[in-house]
C-alpha cells in the first residue's frame, strides 16, 4: 500500500482519494477478522472503479467477496451476516443501484436495532459513489444524501479529501451502527498531500463533527463532498475581491453538526449552502430549517441562499450536464447575492 504513496517531503505523502479509501479498507480488513468487503466486481476485477485494487490478491476470496448481480441479494445477505456478528463493507457500484436494495438498508439495517429493542445489531458500512460523475446521465447521477440522512438509525458520512476518506471510513467500520458512506467518482482521482499521522492505522475522525476548511468573516459556506472543492475555489476568487468566506465541510450528514454551523453564523451573519443534489427537501433545506429553529436565526443579516443542482434528471450531453450542477461561478454569485 505504501508503495503507491509518493513521499513529497518529510512528514507528508501525496495520494489520491481512491488510494485513501483503498488503504483505509486494507488496514481495517487486516485489523479485524470479521471485516470483509462484498459487492460486484470488487475482487478479481479489482473494483469497478479500482477502489479495491490489490485487496483480493492480498486477502483472498474469504475476505473480498465477488457477488452475482443482485443488490437485493448481497445487501440482504450482508444484513444477515452482520446480525450474526460479521462486519460487512458493502460496495454499491453506485448508490443509484442501491435503490434495488434500499429496503434492506432502511427497513432492515437502519430500523432493526430499534425494532428489536437492541437485540439485533446491524453493524455495516454501505459505501459507493454518489452524485454526478461525468456523462453518465440520469440513472447514474443522482445524489442520495438527502434520502439517507432523513432515516433514523443510519449514520451518513460524505468525505471530500484523503484526510476525510481515511479517517471517516475507518471510523465508520469501527462504529457499531449502520453507516452510509457517500463517495464521489470525480474525487477518486484527486490527489492531496497527507501528513504521516493520517496514514496511521488508527487514524480516526470523529463522526458528527464538521470541519472548517477555511476560516473567514463575511460569509459562511456550508457544503460537503465534491462541492467543497468548488467552494474553496470560489472562496479563493472572492478573497481577491476582498470578501472573506468561511468554508465548512460537513463530513457527517447525519447526525449533522449544527453547532459548528451556528457558531460560524454568529461570526459571519450570512450563509450560502452548496450541494450537488436537488433542492427540494435537500441538505441546504435542512440547514435553513436548523438555522430557523435555533438562535442562529437572530444572527442572520440576510436570508440563506441555497445553491443546488437543477431540478431535472441529469442530461447526458456535455454542455447540458455542465449547466445542471453548481460550479465555482454559481457559488461566487450566491455569495455576492447574500452580501447585497
Amino acid at each position, binding site marked *: 500500500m505504501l508503495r503507491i504513496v509518493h513521499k513529497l517531503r518529510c512528514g507528508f505523502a501525496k495520494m489520491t482519494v481512491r488510494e485513501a479509501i483503498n488503504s483505509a479498507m486494507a488496514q481495517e480488513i487486516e485489523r479485524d477478522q470479521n471485516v470483509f468487503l462484498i459487492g460486484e466486481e470488487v475482487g478479481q476485477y479489482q473494483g469497478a472503479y479500482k477502489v479495491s485494487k490489490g485487496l483480493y490478491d492480498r486477502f483472498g476470496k*474469504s475476505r473480498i*467477496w465477488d*457477488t*452475482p448481480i*443482485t443488490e*437485493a*441479494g*448481497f*445487501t*440482504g*445477505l*450482508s*444484513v*444477515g*451476516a*452482520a*446480525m*450474526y*456478528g*460479521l462486519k460487512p463493507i458493502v460496495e454499491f457500484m453506485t448508490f443509484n443501484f442501491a435503490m434495488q436494495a434500499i*429496503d*434492506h438498508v432502511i*427497513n*432492515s439495517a437502519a430500523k*432493526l*436495532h*430499534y*425494532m*428489536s*429493542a*437492541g*437485540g*439485533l*445489531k446491524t453493524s455495516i458500512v454501505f459505501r459507493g459513489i454518489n452524485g454526478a460523475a461525468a456523462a453518465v446521465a440520469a440513472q447514474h447521477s443522482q445524489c442520495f444524501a438527502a434520502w439517507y440522512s432523513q432515516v*433514523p*438509525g443510519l*449514520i451518513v458520512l460524505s468525505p471530500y479529501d484523503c484526510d476525510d476518506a481515511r479517517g471517516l471510513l475507518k471510523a465508520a467500520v469501527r462504529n*457499531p*451502527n449502520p453507516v452510509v458512506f457517500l463517495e464521489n467518482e470525480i474525487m477518486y482521482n484527486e490527489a492531496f498531500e497527507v501528513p504521516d499521522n493520517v496514514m496511521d492505522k488508527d487514524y480516526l475522525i470523529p463522526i*458528527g463533527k464538521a470541519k472548517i476548511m477555511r476560516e473567514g468573516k463575511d460569509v459562511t459556506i456550508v457544503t460537503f463532498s465534491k462541492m467543497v472543492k468548488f467552494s474553496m475555489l470560489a472562496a479563493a476568487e472572492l478573497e481577491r475581491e476582498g470578501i472573506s468566506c468561511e468554508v465548512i465541510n460537513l463530513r457527517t450528514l447525519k*447526525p*449533522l453538526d*449544527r453547532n459548528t454551523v451556528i457558531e460560524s453564523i454568529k461570526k459571519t451573519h450570512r450563509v450560502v449552502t452548496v450541494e450537488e443534489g436537488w433542492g427540494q427537501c435537500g441538505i441546504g433545506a435542512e440547514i435553513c430549517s436548523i438555522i430557523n429553529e435555533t438562535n442562529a436565526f437572530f444572527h442572520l443579516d440576510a436570508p440563506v441562499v441555497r445553491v443546488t443542482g437543477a431540478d431535472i434528471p441529469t442530461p447526458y450531453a456535455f454542455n447540458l450536464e455542465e449547466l445542471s450542477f453548481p460550479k465555482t461561478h454559481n457559488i461566487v454569485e450566491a455569495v455576492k447575492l447574500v452580501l447585497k
Partner: protein
Amino acid sequence: MKHFMRFSKISKAFKEVPSQYVYQINPIKNFEPIKQFRVIDLEGNLIAKEYNNIPKETLNQIFDLMISIEEMDNILYMSQRQGKISFYMTSFGETATTVGTTAALQPQDFIFPQYREQGSFMWRGFTIEQIVNQCIGNHLDGGKGRQMPVHYGSKDLNIVTVSSPLTTQVPQASGAGYGFRVNGENKIAATWFGEGAASEGDFHSAMNFAQTLKCQTLFLCRNNHYAISTPTDDQFRGDTIAGKAPAYGMRTLKIDGNDLLAVYNGVKYAREEIIKNKEPFFIEFITYRIGDHSTSDHSVLYRSQEEIDSWKSGNNPINRLGLFLKKQGLRQFNDEHDNQIRKDVRNRVIAALKNGSEQQSPSIQDLFTDVYDEVLPHLQDQYTQLREHLTKYKDQYPINKFKGGL
C-alpha cells in the same frame, strides 16, 4: 481445419462434450412433480413405519403445545375483535409445521421467522405472557412497544425479530448460514416464508447465493394455499415452490405439512445433511391456512366454506396426530383431561390479557433509545424538549401511564 474467420490466426481445438447435445426441438415444460413425504395418513394410521421413531414424551409435548396454540389463537383473535389488542395473526392448521420443525432443530440454530410461527417461539419457551405483552405493547414487552402485534423476537431463544417486509429474512438467513459455515459452527440458519413470499426477488437471490456460496441455511416454505386472498394458481406456475429449488442446485424435499411425523423426520434429516455437507437444503410444507390471514381479513369473501371445512375436518394436523397417538397407545385420551388443558390455556391467556392491559406503557425515554447504539446528541436534545413539554403540560397527558413517569 480450415479457418473462415478473418481475425482468427491461432488454431486450437475446442473441448466437446457430445452427450450435451440433442438433435430435435423438444422443449421441457414439466419436470416430474415432486411428491409429498408422508408418514401417517389422514386418519392417523402409520404408513411409513421406519419413521415412527419420535420419543413418546416429545410427541405428547408437541400435541399439548399444538392444542394450546389453538386455544391461545382463538382468544387473541377474539380479543382483537373486542378492541383489547389492535391486530393478530392466527396459525390454525399450520402448527404441525412450526412446532414439528422447531422440535427437530437444535436450540443453537437461528430461526428467521415470517410472522405465523408462534409454534416455533413457544416450543423454545416463549410464553403466553410474553406474546400477550408484545401484542399489547406494555412495558413488559421485550420489544419495548416498538412493533405491531405478532412482531416478536428473542435473542435468548435465537429467533430473529419478525420484520414486516416480506422475504427480507430469507437472504439474511443465507448470510447468517454463510457465517456459520465459515466459522465451522454446528449451527444452521432456518428461515420461514410463505408460498406468496417466494415470489419476491429476495427469494431468488437468497437461494442462488446460498447454494453458490455454500451456506448452512435451511429454507422452509410453508405453502398454505393462500397469500391473503391470492390462491396459489394466481401466485405461481410450475411445480409449487419446491419445483424451483433443484434448479438452484439445491437438495429439496416436499413434505405433507399436516403430518407431524413427516415434518419432524424431514427437518431432522435436512439439518444433519446441512451440517454434514456444508450446503443448504430446501423444504416445502404443503398445508392449509384454516383461519383468516389476519384480523384484517375475512376469508370467506374469496374462498368457500366447503373448502375450509374439508381441510379443517378432513386433513387437520391436530386430528391426525391425535388419532396416531391414540391408535399407537402413546397417549391416554380422556375428554375431561384434554378439556382441562384447553381450559387452563384459555384462562391463562385471559389472565395475561387482563394483567397486561393494566400494565404501564414503556417508558418515555424508550422513545429515543436503540435508534443508535447510544442516544446521540440530537436525540438527547429531542428527549429534553419532550420532557420540558410534558412537564409544562402534564395535566394534558396521562404521564402516570408511562413506566417511570416523567
